[in-house]
């Protein structure tokens, strides 16, 4: 199993190395297929590991492989350790499985791009980083993976660096993620100080003894880890980078900013659950941040006009659900939603990619419409994704709220209510997207730009999307709820605990959520069918609509509290310290030396009698001095 894990982890890195070193020596299609092949082989290795773990007994499913010692000092060592258990193998399957489908889709999407080879090198680097993050058996190694996914995310958001917007978006994502990275780093300092090691097993075993439950230190550790999770997973208050990250190529949005990297925060909370359970207040904070994010992002998604940004806000909202799940202790429910979301959100993004591709890179939904006739198969696939997003099937979202009912604390009831309101919002924005893109009259823009005979996407783009649709439907059976066997929770039980909701709670929550989602969807459908109804409704809720269109002014807030002060400090330092003190002192020094040199140069007149006079004068002075000393 160790060999297979190492193959799964390092093969994508080898792919990156080969692509980077071979450069133009291999053709573009060869580079693209090589990038895809390593992802698929990595996935096969992950599948093999999965079956090995499945064949083992419940109690022997956690494996720790010590590969070598990464850094050593007399009192503290960082080993390169992989921890393969049910939680990490689930993530490995998601990352490499969904990852290889998306890389394959990229073969078609990036076809003909001048930087095609670089794209596949980057995306393989991302796969390696993400696998390192989920397979690490040590917090330092986790942080290394955490930072590397941030780097690959930065490289891929800014992939089209000829335009200014992707570059800005990449910088924004990197800086906001760095805030989170610092949080995790400080949490690691706490572990080194109080426990003396950072590997998962020892930290989780000793944490409750070293840090008393609910004590300041316990809260700090959990809160700092939460800071990292919040930044990576685009939750309030560090969420503003995610919509901008949509400037990257669509497969990148699907893989990094929907299926895998942004859900790493959920994985972190689930992985470090002993630390979070040691700090109940931080757990509650996690859940409440999730509720706030899922509601806010849901409202913003309703008024967005860019197809990818709608899905991005939807992602933010769905990750909010996952945060509420891990915040109330329903870790398996959160991981299950992570799994289904990886499939259906990648599906929606790649479907949107096909639409964007067909319309010559147009992303504004107001210019779309009536595409159902032109893209019938894409329409069907997108419907599968939309139905999954609203929560009809799989019912992963409803199970989170059913678990909240079972938990029954105040926080849990806030989660329950917020989640149900979120279901209504999801119904509205998801249906609005489908209605605007695929139905109604074909707009002038569509008639002009839709390539005649272009039809559906090429097979290399279509089949991965179809596979994701199949995955969406099939993963739903892993946990149906209503008292049916919960395979995913049983499998994960050796790594993370779960909250078992009763069948009655499942039925009640699911029915309410379905009803709300359907109501939202039908209302939107009718609204957009009635001419003039949408502007009228918007006028009625003008303040909310305007605030939502401005994304609730978070960017403005950060400009005000972070960017402006930083700029002020920088400008002041430049004016005072740099220009005045540093440059000024050097200028003054040079001027002084120059003037002194000029004065001395004037003394050298070349007139012999002057020299003689000075000489005589000097002799007189010396003579006078000697006379005063003389003992006459």
């Amino acid at each position, binding site marked *: 199993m160790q060999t297979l894990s190492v193959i799964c982890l390092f093969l994508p890195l080898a792919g990156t190395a080969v692509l980077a070193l071979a450069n133009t020596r291999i053709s573009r299609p060869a580079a693209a297929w090589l990038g895809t092949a390593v992802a698929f082989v990595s996935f096969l290795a992950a599948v093999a590991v999965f079956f090995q773990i499945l064949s083992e007994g419940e109690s022997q499913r956690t494996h720790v492989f010590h590969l070598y010692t990464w850094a050593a000092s007399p009192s503290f060592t960082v080993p390169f350790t992989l921890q393969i258990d049910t939680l990490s193998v689930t993530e490995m399957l998601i990352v490499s499985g969904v990852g290889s489908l998306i890389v394959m889709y990229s073969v078609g999407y990036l076809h003909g791009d001048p930087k095609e080879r670089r794209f596949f090198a980057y995306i393989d680097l991302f796969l390696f980083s993400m696998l390192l993050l989920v397979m690490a058996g040590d917090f330092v190694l986790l942080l290394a993976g955490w930072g590397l996914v941030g780097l690959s995310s930065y490289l891929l958001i800014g992939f089209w660096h000829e335009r200014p917007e992707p570059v800005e978006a990449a910088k924004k994502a990197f800086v906001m993620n760095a805030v989170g990275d610092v949080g995790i780093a400080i949490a690691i300092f706490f572990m080194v100080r109080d426990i003396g090691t950072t590997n998962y097993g020892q930290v989780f075993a000793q944490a409750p003894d070293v840090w008393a439950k609910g004590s300041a230190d316990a809260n700090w550790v959990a809160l700092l880890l939460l800071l990292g999770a919040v930044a990576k997973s685009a939750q309030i208050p560090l969420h503003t980078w995610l919509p901008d990250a949509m400037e990257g190529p669509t497969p990148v949005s699907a893989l990094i900013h929907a299926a895998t990297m942004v859900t790493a925060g959920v994985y972190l909370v689930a992985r470090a659950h002993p630390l979070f359970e040691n700090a109940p207040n931080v757990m509650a904070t996690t859940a409440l941040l999730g509720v706030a994010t899922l509601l806010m992002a849901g409202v913003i998604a309703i008024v967005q006009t860019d197809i990818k940004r709608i899905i991005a806000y939807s992602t933010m909202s769905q990750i909010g659900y996952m945060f509420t799940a891990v915040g109330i202790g329903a870790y398996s429910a959160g991981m299950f939603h992570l799994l289904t979301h990886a499939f259906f959100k990648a599906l929606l993004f790649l479907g949107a990619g096909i639409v964007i591709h067909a319309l010559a890179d147009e992303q504004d939904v107001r210019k779309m419409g009536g595409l159902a006739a032109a893209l019938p198969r894409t329409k069907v696939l997108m419907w599968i994704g939309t139905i999954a997003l609203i929560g009809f099937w799989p019912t992963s979202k409803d199970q989170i709220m059913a678990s909240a009912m079972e938990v029954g604390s105040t926080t849990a009831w806030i989660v329950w209510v917020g989640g149900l309101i979120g279901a209504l919002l999801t119904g509205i924005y998801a249906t609005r997207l489908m209605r605007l893109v695929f139905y109604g009259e074909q707009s002038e823009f569509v008639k002009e730009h839709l390539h005649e005979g272009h039809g559906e996407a090429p097979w290399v783009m279509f089949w991965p999307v179809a596979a994701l649709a199949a995955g969406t439907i099939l993963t739903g059976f892993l946990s149906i709820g209503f008292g049916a066997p919960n395979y995913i929770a049983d499998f994960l039980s050796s790594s993370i605990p779960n909250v078992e909701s009763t069948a009655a709670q499942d039925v009640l929550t699911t029915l309410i959520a379905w009803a709300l989602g359907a109501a939202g969807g039908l209302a939107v459908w009718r609204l957009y069918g009635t001419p003039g109804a949408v502007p009228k409704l918007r006028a009625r809720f003008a303040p909310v609509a305007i605030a939502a269109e401005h994304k609730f002014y978070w960017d403005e807030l950060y400009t005000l509290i972070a960017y402006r002060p930083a700029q002020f400090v920088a400008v002041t330092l430049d004016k005072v310290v740099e220009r005045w003190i540093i440059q000024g002192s050097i200028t003054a020094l040079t001027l002084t030396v120059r003037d002194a040199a000029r004065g001395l140069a004037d003394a*050298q007149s*070349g*007139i*012999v*009698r002057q020299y*003689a*006079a000075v000489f*005589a004068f000097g002799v007189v002075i010396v003579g006078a001095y000697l006379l005063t000393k003389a003992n006459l």
Partner: protein
Amino acid sequence: MSVGVVWFIGVSAILFGIGLTGVLMRRSPLLILLSVELMLNACNLSLVAFSRNLGQQDGQVFALVVMAIAASEVVVGLGLVVAMARRHAELDVDNLINLRH
């Protein structure tokens, strides 16, 4: 009666002053050389006077050395003056400022 050493020193000082004034005031290199000779001889006078006063021979020997040096100096100085005259340069030391640059 013997004349006190103070008189010799007085004459020597006066001669030295005249010589120094000549060096500072005159512009002709020839006259400057003459003035320098005057200053050197003023020194010689005082050296000899002190030698005689103290009854030691060192001062007289030193005066001979000064004369030798004065002769060498005149040779170099007059050589310079002749060189200047050959180049039809005006005999004025204030014009000799070319080395400044």
